[in-house]
């Protein structure tokens, strides 16, 4: 028998394999790996300091933009094509319309300040551009793009009428400070939609500058910035709001990061086909700041009535604000229909400006939580459609308190005939609640919807009764 010097290596290997392989094969791992949502969260690159690059004092906002374009030549071109600048969508199909339509703030009515046409100087304070004061704004001039409103990190930048920099803003300091947009940049406009903090959305307000973790798990516990979820490429920011968009292209979804089997509990996972994540994980809206639920324009202009910002203003009428609102729940497939200028309305009924698409039989629809904003706003009692009043400016209602002239002025701009007879019709708008996701420990529980005192009206949603006993939507036919 030969004396093989390295026989021990073979023996050791064999022994190790015989011992280790069965252990690996047969001993079950105690923990099953889960899908880690963090893998989808973009890595934040450190901002490049622009302090040394910006030296000249800037006279105007456009000067700053020009300086930006020296190094980022395509940036303004990119921006100018996005809805943040155009306030208009790509052509999209809309039910009942034979041609594709382009919708956006440019041409839509809402039931807050109603519409921008004839009111540009006031509304475009929140336009990512400079100088939009009338119908003739030049959207092709890339110098009109406002880089600073999104990129300023000095905190000292502010916009005034027509979106121009406010008086006294230190443009040089702002230009030197630029960086990746933060909650402060986005919040400057989006937390103040509707003319003030927390007015419009119910899930976006200034409390999100310094959110508590119970209020918003992403921004509070993990200090998310808006752009962490609203991923942006070439200045095209993802995300859609059903107040201005009707389609769901480029939408942001919870499942972008929370992939795969999201709950440990199979009973909960059985819900995800029919219930939006938001429904359970956003138990209530406006948890920190009261949001506007009702706006009655018809009471405006009363000089005798005492003013109180959350109840009555002479220029705007009366309001109802609520906090910790119980959402309204409805089927929603991600798209909405849209009331367009000139669409007929039923003056005795409630006109929904953005009716939700989807119902229990729509496999793409899920039950979603909404803030529903109700308003009474002016319409033409002869032609039966909503009217666009001019509110801003010397001849606007906020100065004249004369509805007739305000509606005449507005209609002249929109081109929609005004009969001279106006009334106030009830409208409502749906606002999805998608922000202020609470920690999972505070999500809704079974009994919040099911059982004796559930918050869902199952019959109204199209079920025969509580699905806990009647079965899910598939079993309702």
């Amino acid at each position, binding site marked *: 028998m030969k004396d093989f010097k390295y026989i021990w290596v073979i023996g050791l290997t064999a022994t190790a394999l015989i011992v280790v392989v069965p252990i690996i094969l047969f001993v079950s791992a105690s923990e099953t790996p889960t899908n880690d949502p963090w893998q989808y969260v973009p890595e934040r690159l450190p901002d490049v300091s622009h302090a040394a690059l910006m030296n000249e004092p800037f006279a105007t906002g456009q000067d700053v933009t020009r300086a930006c374009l020296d190094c980022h030549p395509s940036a303004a071109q990119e921006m100018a094509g996005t809805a943040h600048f155009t306030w208009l969508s790509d052509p999209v199909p809309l039910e009942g319309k034979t041609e594709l339509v382009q919708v956006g703030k440019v041409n839509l009515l809402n039931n807050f300040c109603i519409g921008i046409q004839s009111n540009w100087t006031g509304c475009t304070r929140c336009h990512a551009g400079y100088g939009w004061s009338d119908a003739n704004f030049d959207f092709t001039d890339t110098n009109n793009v406002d880089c600073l409103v999104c990129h300023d990190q000095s905190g000292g930048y502010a916009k005034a009428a027509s979106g121009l920099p406010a008086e006294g803003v230190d443009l040089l300091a702002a230009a030197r400070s630029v960086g990746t947009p933060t909650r402060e940049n986005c919040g400057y406009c989006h937390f103040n939609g509707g003319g003030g903090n927390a007015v419009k959305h119910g899930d976006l307000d200034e409390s999100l500058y310094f959110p508590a973790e119970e209020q918003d798990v992403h921004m509070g516990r993990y200090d998310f910035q808006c752009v962490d979820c609203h991923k942006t490429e070439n200045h095209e920011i993802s995300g859609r709001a059903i107040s201005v968009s009707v389609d769901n292209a480029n939408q942001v979804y919870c499942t972008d990061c929370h992939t795969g089997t999201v709950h440990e509990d199979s009973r909960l996972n059985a819900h995800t086909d029919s219930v939006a994540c938001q429904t359970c994980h956003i138990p209530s809206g406006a948890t920190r700041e009261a949001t506007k639920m009702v706006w009655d324009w018809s009471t405006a202009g009363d000089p005798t009535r005492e003013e109180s910002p959350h109840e009555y203003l002479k220029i705007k009428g009366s309001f109802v604000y609520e906090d910790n609102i119980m959402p309204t729940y409805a089927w929603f497939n991600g798209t909405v229909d849209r009331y367009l200028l000139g669409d007929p309305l039923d003056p005795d009924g409630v006109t929904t400006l953005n009716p939700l698409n989807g119902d229990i039989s729509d496999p793409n629809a899920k039950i979603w939580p909404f803030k529903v904003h109700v308003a009474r706003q002016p319409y033409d009692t002869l032609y039966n459609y909503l009217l666009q009043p001019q509110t801003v400016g010397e001849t606007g209602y906020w100065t004249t308190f004369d509805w007739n002239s305000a509606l005449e002025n507005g209609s002249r701009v929109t081109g929609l005939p005004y009969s001279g007879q106006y009334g106030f019709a009830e409208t409502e708008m749906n606002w999805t609640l998608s922000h202020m996701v609470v920690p999972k420990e505070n999500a809704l529980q079974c009994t919040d919807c099911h*059982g004796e005192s559930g918050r869902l009206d199952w019959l109204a949603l199209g079920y025969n009764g509580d699905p806990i006993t009647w079965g899910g939507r598939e079993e309702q036919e």
Partner: protein
Amino acid sequence: MMRRTRQPFILVTLVLGLLLMLVGLTATLSAAQDAPPVSPAVASPLHPVFPLLDVDGAPVIGSGKPVSTLKTCGECHDTAFITQNATHNGVSTFTGGSTPGYGDDLLAAYLNNTKDVPAGAVEMNCFLCHTAQPNNAARVSALQAGDYAWANTATLLGTGIVEQTGNGWIYNAAAFDETGALKRDYVTVQDPTSAACGQCHGVVHTDAQTPLTFDATGLDIGQYKTLTTGQVMSPQRLSSSGLNLADKNALSRSWDVHAERVLNCTNCHYSLNNPVYFTESSEDRPDHLVFDPRRMDFGEYLKRPLHQFAKGQSAVTPEINNTMRRCESCHSIEATHNWLPYKERHTEAMACETCHIPQVYAPALESVDWTVPAADGSPHTAWRGLAADDPALLTGYQPVMLPRANADGSQSLAPFNLVTSWYWAYGDEAQPVPLDSVKAAYFDGETYAADVLAAFDVDGDGALSDTERLIDTAAKETFIAARLKTAGFVNAKIVGEVQPFAINHNVAWGDWAIRDCRTCHGEDSRLTAALVLSDRTPGGALPTFTSLEGFTASGLHTDDTGALRYEFKPAEAGLYIFGHSAVDWLDWLGVLFFLGTLAGVTLHGGLRYLSVRRRVPQQAELKRVYMYSVYERQWHWLQTALIFGLIFTGLVIHKPDKFGIFSFDYIVQVHNILAIILLINAALAAFYHLASGEIQQFLPKPHGFFNDAIMQAKYYLRGIFKGEEHPFAKTRQRKMNPLQQMTYLMILNVLLPAQVITGILMWGAQHFPDVTASLGGLPFLAPLHTIVAWLFASFIVAHVYLTTTGHTPLTNIKAMISGWDEVEAHDSGLNPKEQTS
């Protein structure tokens, strides 16, 4: 015998008595103060309108008489049948204490201030459970006032149907139509809700959004389950409740997962003939039928619904014990517990509740001391689940584990609260002294008697504080016993009882259940964690433990602070808990054997070393022999690795606390895999030795074996130090000397089989529990396995040492690696046959 059957009730009785006067008082007050809300409840969508009838069957709106529930409901439902088949007919006379079956006689003795409601004085009270907003306080108040006739009608107070005035009860005409029937809006008849059950059974809070609050240590007997165990029935998360819970924010579990998952009390505790839940027993069903479609229809059920409700086991109404579905009737353990090693063994030894009710968060009664009553007759009480330094902070408590007899005759560990009580008893039968008489022994009118004060008032302030109300000396006991004797109670003495209260609610789902093996498998196993029963032992006598069926506890003891404690002793329940239940003396024996071997070889080796130094080195002539085949070496080293692995993993399982970095359940699985490989390796080796004839190596030659063995022993004891040659040369044909042969015979025929068999049987506790149990069960097998492991470990020490006795210390080891041995090329000791071969 009578005494025995009453034992379990005494404590309940005492507990019940605790707040009775309070109940009466608050009930009266609230009944008087609450302005009746007018019909706030939603009318029943289904129940027809009906007239309220009096005992004569006439509408009460005409007669003005009290409502007869039996007549009113009896128009449609068979109230005679219902009354006869009801476990709850006693609720009509329940005033917060005298629940039938809970020993009314004792209550009557103790609670002289509550009225005993005469049997039959009140009809079964349908309204209490079947209307939307029953007024229990008004009902109790009426009973307390002796107004039995109106007690059931009083339940409707506040619904707008009836009002109480100074002159008595008046029906509200607006609630009735012209036929005398209740108007639609006033018909709120419904299935019993959980809240309805909560009126008497414990704290129920079905609204997840409104924070739950209650005075945790001010509970009355109407929250019986909460009072005795701390169980709270609510879907609400603990973190959302309004209670001052320690580390509250982290407590995102609900009070009860079943309540959270939208179950009501009646989903488990259903009427026994409810066709929705009722299933015929499979024993009655012919074999050819899987499902018998002939069911009771709803009409028949609604006419004659059994009012016995499915339940588990308790002393009350034992005739319907175990009619309820058990955890495993609804839940599949198979589908969910795959992470748990020894799943079957765990589920056999432990109730589901053991892991799934790891903590009860509301306080529960700990002890009730009736021996020194306060002025209002109330006892001294102590609560479990309060922070030691801040009684306002609720910590909850971990239940104690006790063996519970299951419906199928098996026994498993289940969680309990233990409530200890002390009271005065007298006579040879140790009959409880009525509370009135106890109080009389202490009091002179409304104040403590002067000599009682002298004996008890430690700080001399003229009053007895809560801490002074304690009989902590023999003198005090004798003193009061003497006073009781004067009152006619001879041989009065303090008697204590410990009563277990089962905990089955407040179940947590998987994430909150006990999942860490070492919670139980470790030195500080919570299965044996001491539960403080009381900080006092009045009279100094250990209380008796009210026995559970099939288990008598012996772990009661007082610690050095005088506190009374209980520790569960697993061995008493026939349990051996790996990682916890080591038999200490056996371990010490094993350690001793191991260390002895180690010391022996160290001494021997040291002497050899010294002797070699003193000796002139001799160069024996060597020759190389191919001693071990490849397979022999592979077999040997594999076995080496396995045995080391098994001893190590075994040690981790045996003493997990010493090896905290290892996952217990992983190591258990590794241990089992290694054992299987070892078994296969041993079997293959046995086959090899048998087939090749190498088995002869292990077989001693009978002739002259002992002489040879002695010669070898002498060599190890003497010759080896003198540099003598080995008495038996190692050859390919005869590798082992007689001592080795003897040792291996022992190992292969005794130790290895013992270890393999005990190991398989211990594993078998999971797979064939009956066999394991019949062969001694884990309490016998596990210690045996342990001691054999110590012997193996000792063998290895000796074995490794003896390999160094070759011509150089490493020769033998090298030979086992390469196969080639260097042996002394001389001929002494060789037998002739081998010399020639």
